[in-house]
């Protein structure tokens, strides 16, 4: 099929940036979206033009490296990562707009590449269980009800791609933060640091300039892993509890 892509080109963080159009004549429906960009980049290279910079790594939907806003939607029209989106989701003659994540907390590095270092810093602020190597008790000494383990797992499948931020009208990273709070807070191992974790992570979240959550739910709709919105309720409950205890 023939398609036209309009791609955000920005040489560096201080460049103003603009949308640039490219026509592609021979796109197979079996191609992944990123393979379509690979083909375009091969052509641009041979024409002596700089290829479009974009991030991707595993191309299996698990590393969280890729992430494009496609026709205004984070990761495009299907509920999946950009790398798992295939051209069969588009049709002949389509004009497709491709932009980077839009968030002041994710500054553009070049073209479609953004800096998501803020997510690592939120994890540093408490997104872990302190379990120094060698100190662990026998694994089966600590039974975890299957239901809790399954819920914790569901939250732990967050890939840290940042689609939640890109989709949120407030630019909030609350779903990302809440997924970790939920994962660790549902497990018995996570209890000792439960209050300090939520306080630290939320403070860092705000410090990074992410917006507040007003329960719109765009985040969970855009999340390729389907992290549920109720993780944010859990975060709020933990936060209130921690604040009430005055553990700052």
């Amino acid at each position, binding site marked *: 099929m023939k398609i036209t892509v309009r791609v955000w080109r920005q040489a560096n963080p201080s460049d103003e940036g603009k949308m640039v159009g490219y026509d592609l004549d021979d796109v197979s429906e079996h191609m992944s979206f990123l393979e379509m960009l690979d083909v375009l980049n091969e052509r641009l290279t041979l024409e002596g033009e700089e290829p479009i*910079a974009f991030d991707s790594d595993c*191309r299996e939907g698990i590393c969280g490296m890729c992430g494009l806003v496609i026709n205004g939607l984070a990761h495009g029209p299907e509920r999946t990562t950009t790398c798992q989106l295939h051209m069969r989701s588009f049709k002949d003659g389509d004009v497709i707009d491709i932009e980077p994540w839009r968030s002041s907390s994710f500054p553009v590095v070049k073209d479609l590449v953004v800096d*998501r270092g803020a997510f690592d810093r939120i994890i540093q602020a408490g997104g872990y269980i*302190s379990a120094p190597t060698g100190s662990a008790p026998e694994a089966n000494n600590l039974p975890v009800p299957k239901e809790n*383990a399954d819920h914790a797992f569901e939250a732990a499948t967050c890939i840290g791609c940042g689609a939640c931020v890109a989709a949120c009208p407030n630019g909030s990273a609350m779903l990302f933060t809440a997924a970790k709070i939920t994962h660790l807070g549902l497990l018995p191992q996570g209890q000792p640091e439960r209050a300090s974790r939520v306080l630290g992570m939320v403070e860092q979240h705000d410090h990074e300039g992410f917006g507040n959550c007003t329960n719109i739910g765009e985040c969970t709709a855009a999340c390729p892993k389907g992290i549920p919105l109720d993780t944010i309720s859990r975060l709020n409950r933990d936060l209130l509890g921690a604040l009430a205890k005055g553990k700052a």
Partner: protein
Amino acid sequence: MTVNTQARTDEFTDIYDLGEPIADTRAPDVDVRQRWETRRFEAKLVNPANRRKLKVIIVGTGLAGASAAATLGEAGYHVTSFCYQDSPRRAHSIAAQGGINAAKNYRNDGDSIYRLFYDTVKGGDFRSRESNVYRLAQVSVEIIDQCVAQGVPFAREYGGLLDNRSFGGVQVSRTFYARGQTGQQLLIGAYQALERQVAAGTVINHTRHEMLEVIVADDRARGVIVRDMVTGEIETHFADAVVLATGGYGNVFFLSTNAMGCNVTANWRAHRKGAYFGNPCYTQIHPTCIPVSGDYQSKLTLMSESLRNDGRIWVPKKAGDDRPASQIPEDERDYYLERQYPSFGNLVPRDIASRAAKYVCDEGRGVGPGGLGVYLDFADAITRLGRDTVEAKYGNLFDMYAQITGENPYETPMRIYPAVHYTMGGLWVDYDLQSSITGLFVTGEANFSDHGANRLGASALMQGLADGYFVLPYTLANYLADGPYEPIDETHPAAVEAKQQVTDRIEKLLSINGTRTVDSFHRELGTIMWEYCGMARTEGGLLKAIELIRELRTEFWRNVKVTGVNEDLNQTLERAGRVADFIDLGELMCIDALHRRESCGGHFRVESQTEDGEALRHDDDFAYVAAWEFGGDGGKPVLHKEALIYQNVEMKQRSYK
């Protein structure tokens, strides 16, 4: 087919030189069960107060790198880590699906440390070191405890205890898993432990940095040259020891299940500086991947082999039968693994399953586009267990398959085909995980040490974490105990030289301005490797491949087109450097495959097979590790042999019948 012994032991001296034998001198000479305990006791310790004076560089933040960085940071060392991704959490360990082995014997089904050791040695087709494998089996138990303490949400039973499943090549249930995302959950655990140390100030992690050279000063690894992939700045970092945890080199085949960025550059640069490369030809072709759909294909996607627990593999009995699967009656289907290997059936080791798929496709019985695929059918499992149970076990894998192929695997059988997945070869290391460069340690998939000629399922995660959490912290401390080493700075000739090598190479790549893209060279290299150094290898084919690769190298350095400049985020330049190293590695892999005139594990030489078409080893001639020394640009590599001595497990022809 047989080959006479004289020919089998002839060396190709026009292609490589034969060097002195080498040996692992670090494993204590005691019973295999006592070796690790003895080594731990004999290893020198570093006083906690002195640790902060010692600096360690760790390259790579996958399971092996992140776990080591976190543990060494906790211990009080100064750790600097690097990853090429934008976050340590994205390292390719994250894509491992199936699980992690541990000899917990929670199923009471006869498992033990010794059995895990035995299975791994046998699975590796008797080409691994007993000492290392036994230690791996021993620490496997601690890994699970550690991961659970960190909050890794492993699958559990209703009683709240940990669940297990069985995996290819073994008859016990010892695999711990987190649905089909075990690698992700283990890596997130290690990543969180790493970030905790970043917050504590013991680890400094640099994202979007690529290691391009190792600094070897006064015969010790003392630092690295890295490129800041955003600004292009070439930075020099020093330390008392350097650890490479940089993963495998499957992308030499262009199409593999590795992430796009996985590369051999860190390892290859170290190899050029004196680190021997062990068994480069041992590559694992994974049987359960989604087949290629077109020539634009950028990578292949693995479906966890845990699918083989419940899926049944078959092809039509008749060649050229192109009816849809649903219209092929039961008695016209050939469940060829169940037929040929009645006791292991669909759970035979990966190399056997892959080769069997190739053979049925070679016979014209393959299914799907181009006839390069076999069915993996869940109809029986869905009838037996119910769709809900199948979905709970494999839901995300089924979803992934549906997304990529547009087909519904609950209704039509999946199509699978083998793809390059893992490389057992890697930098040669001793029992301490130290390479042939003093002070350079290599962990995880980047080293050659534990899997022999074939890796069993759910063993990669085990090895990465074993090395990082439980082995390196002891063996590296033993080395650091003699430090801090004399400080050096950017004016040291070794640092100046290494930096110059990096900048010269980048300038060269940018100045060629030829007519072919980097990817076109990478694809061509991949085609050569898959054709001649893939699932079945021959002497003639390998000799031809070596010629083709040499021509490709000349063409690359004459005609590659790299756009842009160094002082910028330049993904073409990044790839160009990696492909140049893959070309050199590809040649060495073919030389290694050529010299090893036997079949073993993932290395199948057509000239060496049993009457049944199984891999035929020649233990008298080839029970050794091939450790290759760099022979200089245009020079011949030098082969050093490390004899493999089996004191515990009897070397047998593998049989999974």
